[in-house]
């Protein structure tokens, strides 16, 4: 079985992000920056109705606009029933953005408006308009039950109940979804802002009915995705067809408005939870009813994975008597898709909130209640270590006992995730001049994949990471999977290890140099003659594993006059097997916390029930955390090199919102049970704002 080297120089070090210089100088070319000769601008016409029968779309006037080179319908006939505000209808390509804007205005659309429903509560009404004509808005509930729940509750010394809700959250990668596509007789070349170049190639070839060998997809730099950028997307298909009609490359990047409406979101949840325990705090009975919306994609509740409403419950805990009933509710709004740790942040928020309520009822320290019930040994140690670093013992006070108008409070919560690797291939090319190129058909979403590749290769060859020329994001490179589920590091690292280890062996064999590493490298390479050495490798068992915990502690200050919540400090303890790149792992951890703060305090899609439109499809009204919203973040990684590489991009964002919500409840003595915890909701919880819910 292969094993990571004992002496690691760059692996686990603070080695710098290898593509950072390109990113700080503007040299990095993202999909949105690619400008092939003769490129055209592309834009999409979207439905302004929440629901309508589109009977005719006339592109004639649009085609006459100066500078317009192509105009196409989404559907051949132009007929379509649109089911949400923002659904794609047609697309245009022109020599400038202005030409496209003029063309979009000139498109004539005939439509019959239909009744719609955009809010979960409305959609549950008997009289509500149906999103899908042949099915009720609410899906058939899925019920999972074990033990004797009702009996167990009657045996509990303490029983608590609560209702917790989480919003629809929009991914908002700063680089919007989009592609630059050139379709010529030789084939299709696509620069995609994607988490999966292979899945885009498959989608393009299928959509255009071309052999996959004629489709090449690049994604060298991409401006993040958070789970929303796996497939070709409607916009990708439209860009390809525009390119064909215009006979020129077309760049079609969504606008921020488009991005808000149509390319995915995290579904909402409404969780009614009942939890019971023995007098000494052992969890005995759990009951959940959960529903929420995944927009028009709400036909079925699917656990985890790809953007369903269903959440894992009772999350990280094992409760012998458990009943969970979950269903999803379709509304006329953009469909959900995977979003960083799908279903886990809402699961954590609901469960960890009710745990704190139970602790209050039992008059117990909430950390003690967790240690009593957490079944995962690594997390037990993380809680103990984190509590020490955070100063839990000194900071924890009974809920609501903080004096003065600005109240402080503390809370904690935990995560679980997998992050294991899978089949990936890679290629190492050693050139006679000693330069090294490592190729792998993976993607770097900003997570640090290129850096991970460079440090692994550098350690095996005895070189510096800067000496490794990392090439990724090209479907002509050896394939890797899509970058999702925190699987990339654990997928790619073993394949790089294998390719480089074999390349080193082959180099030594061919040149007779016993140890070609480090200072012998150039001498050995020169002996290769003219041809470079190219060696293939693949993912190997034993260099990665799966399954992590992770805990977070939050300290907040809440202004009881304004309702404003300030997160003062987060302490995060996270295991991640062998930490390959310390620097980028740290950045991931901060990143998870910041996104969790947004989920806890600011982010929420707001739909207008009168008109069916989204009210906040921009960054003035859909709030992201800014620099001054970031707290002090203390990060502790637990290094377990014997486990090999495990991804951590998702677990680090799971417990943040729950820990903050618990800290707010601890500060106030009353709970804000709806995310985001806005000032208005804080004031309402304090009985100071009678208008809000």
């Amino acid at each position: 079985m292969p094993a990571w080297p004992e002496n690691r120089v760059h692996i686990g070090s603070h080695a710098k992000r290898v593509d950072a210089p390109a990113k700080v100088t503007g040299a990095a070319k993202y999909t949105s920056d690619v400008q092939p000769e003769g490129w055209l601008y592309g834009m999409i016409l979207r439905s302004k109705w929440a629901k309508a029968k589109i009977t005719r779309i006339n592109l004639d006037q649009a085609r006459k606009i100066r500078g317009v080179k192509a105009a196409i319908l989404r559907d051949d006939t132009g007929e379509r029933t649109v089911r949400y505000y923002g659904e794609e209808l047609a697309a245009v390509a022109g020599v400038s953005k202005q030409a496209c804007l003029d063309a979009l205005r000139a498109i004539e659309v005939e439509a019959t408006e239909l009744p719609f429903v955009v809010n979960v509560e409305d959609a549950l009404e008997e009289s509500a308009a149906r999103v899908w004509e042949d099915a009720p808005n609410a899906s058939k509930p899925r019920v999972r039950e074990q033990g004797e729940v009702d009996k167990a509750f009657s045996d509990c010394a303490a029983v608590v109940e609560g209702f917790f809700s989480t919003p629809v959250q929009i991914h908002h990668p700063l680089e919007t979804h989009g592609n630059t596509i050139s379709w010529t007789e030789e084939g299709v070349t696509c620069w995609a802002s994607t988490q999966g170049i292979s899945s885009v190639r498959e989608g393009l070839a299928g959509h255009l009915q071309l052999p996959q060998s004629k489709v090449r997809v690049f994604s060298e730099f991409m401006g993040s995705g958070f789970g929303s950028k796996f497939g070709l997307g409607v916009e990708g298909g439209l860009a390809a067809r525009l390119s064909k009609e215009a006979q020129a490359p077309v760049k079609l990047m969504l606008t921020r408005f488009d991005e808000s409406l149509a390319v995915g979101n995290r579904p909402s949840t409404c969780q009614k939870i009942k939890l019971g325990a023995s007098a000494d705090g052992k969890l005995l009975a759990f009951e959940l009813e959960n529903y929420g919306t995944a927009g028009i994609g709400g036909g079925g509740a699917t656990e985890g994975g790809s953007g369903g409403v269903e959440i894992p419950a009772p999350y990280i805990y094992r409760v012998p008597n458990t009943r969970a009933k979950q269903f999803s509710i379709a509304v006329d709004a953009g469909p959900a898709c995977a979003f960083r740790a799908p279903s886990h942040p809402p699961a954590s928020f609901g469960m960890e909130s009710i745990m704190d309520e139970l602790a209050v009822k039992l008059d117990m320290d909430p950390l003690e209640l967790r240690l009593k019930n957490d079944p995962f040994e690594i997390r037990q140690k993380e809680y103990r270590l984190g509590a020490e670093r955070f100063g839990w013992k000194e900071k924890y006070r009974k809920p609501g006992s903080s004096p003065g108008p600005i109240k402080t409070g503390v809370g904690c919560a935990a995560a679980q995730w997998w992050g294991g690797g899978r089949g990936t291939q890679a290629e190492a090319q050693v050139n006679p001049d000693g330069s090294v190129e490592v190729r792998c058909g993976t993607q770097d979403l900003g997570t640090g994949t290129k850096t991970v590749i460079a440090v692994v290769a550098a350690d095996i060859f005895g070189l510096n990471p800067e000496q490794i020329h990392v090439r990724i994001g090209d479907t002509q490179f050896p394939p890797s999977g899509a970058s999702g589920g925190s699987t990339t590091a654990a997928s790619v690292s073993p394949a790089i290890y294998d390719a480089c280890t074999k390349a080193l062996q082959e180099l030594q064999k061919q040149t007779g140099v016993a140890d070609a590493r480090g200072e012998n490298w150039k001498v050995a390479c020169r002996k290769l003659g003219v041809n470079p050495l190219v060696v293939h490798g693949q993912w190997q068992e034993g260099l990665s594993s799966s399954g992590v915990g992770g805990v977070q502690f939050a300290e907040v200050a809440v202004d009881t006059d304004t309702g404003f919540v300030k997160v003062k400090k987060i302490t995060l303890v996270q295991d991640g097997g062998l930490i390959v790149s310390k620097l980028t792992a740290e950045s991931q951890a901060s990143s998870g916390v910041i996104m969790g703060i947004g989920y806890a305090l600011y982010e929420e899609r707001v739909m207008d029930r009168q008109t069916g439109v989204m009210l906040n499809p921009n960054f003035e009204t859909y709030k992201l955390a800014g620099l001054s919203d970031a707290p002090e973040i203390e990060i502790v990684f637990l290094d377990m090199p014997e486990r090999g590489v495990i991804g951590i991009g998702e677990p680090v964002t799971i417990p943040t919102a729950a820990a903050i919500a618990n800290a707010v409840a601890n500060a106030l003595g009353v709970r804000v049970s709806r995310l985001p915890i806005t000032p208005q909701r804080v004031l309402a919880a304090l009985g100071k704002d009678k208008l809000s819910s």
Partner: protein
Amino acid sequence: MSEFMSNPGPSISRRSFLKTFGTGAAVAATAQVEAVARQLEKANAEKVLGPDAVPITLLVNGKPVKLQVEPRVTLLEALRDHSGFTGAKEVCDRAACGACTVLLDGKAVYSCAMLAVEAQGQAITTVEGLAQGDKLSPVQQAFVDDDALMCGYCTPGFVMSVTALLKANPHPTADEVERACSGNLCRCGAHPRIVQAALRAAGVSTTSKTEVISYASLA
């Protein structure tokens, strides 16, 4: 702007909007509303550019760039789509996120919220113009050293905002950095690193609170 696009109707260009807004204040300030409006209309008519493309010259990173663009083209579009300076990014296109930040005579501005024709005669600095050959500027180097970026899409904007700050205030506090960057958004969450990098570029040494502890060493 783009949400108006699905509603076919009278078009309001950015320019005419600005014009109306700009003159509106003057009109309200006087009793002779109509007379002033007529005068302004006449004055404006002499200065109105377009709607066809007009020749303009932008001074980008010290070099003149001659372009033929419609007057309604923003500075950001002129830089990215017409001149190949793709460092500044289009993220919100409405002055809410700062990814398009460039320097105009040393001051940080949103290039998406300004017309290209208005930027003539001023020195425009984009992120491509900061490094001297391979040598990064102190701000760029600090962003690399502190890993003040992840996907990198917001990075050019932050680098320009911090560069402008340090020009005006070479020794800022963390609060001042946060204020200077309050018009910039980062979705990946590089926030603490960005503040750290700005302080490092200003010569303040900062320490990371990250630790890696061996699991095996724990009791």
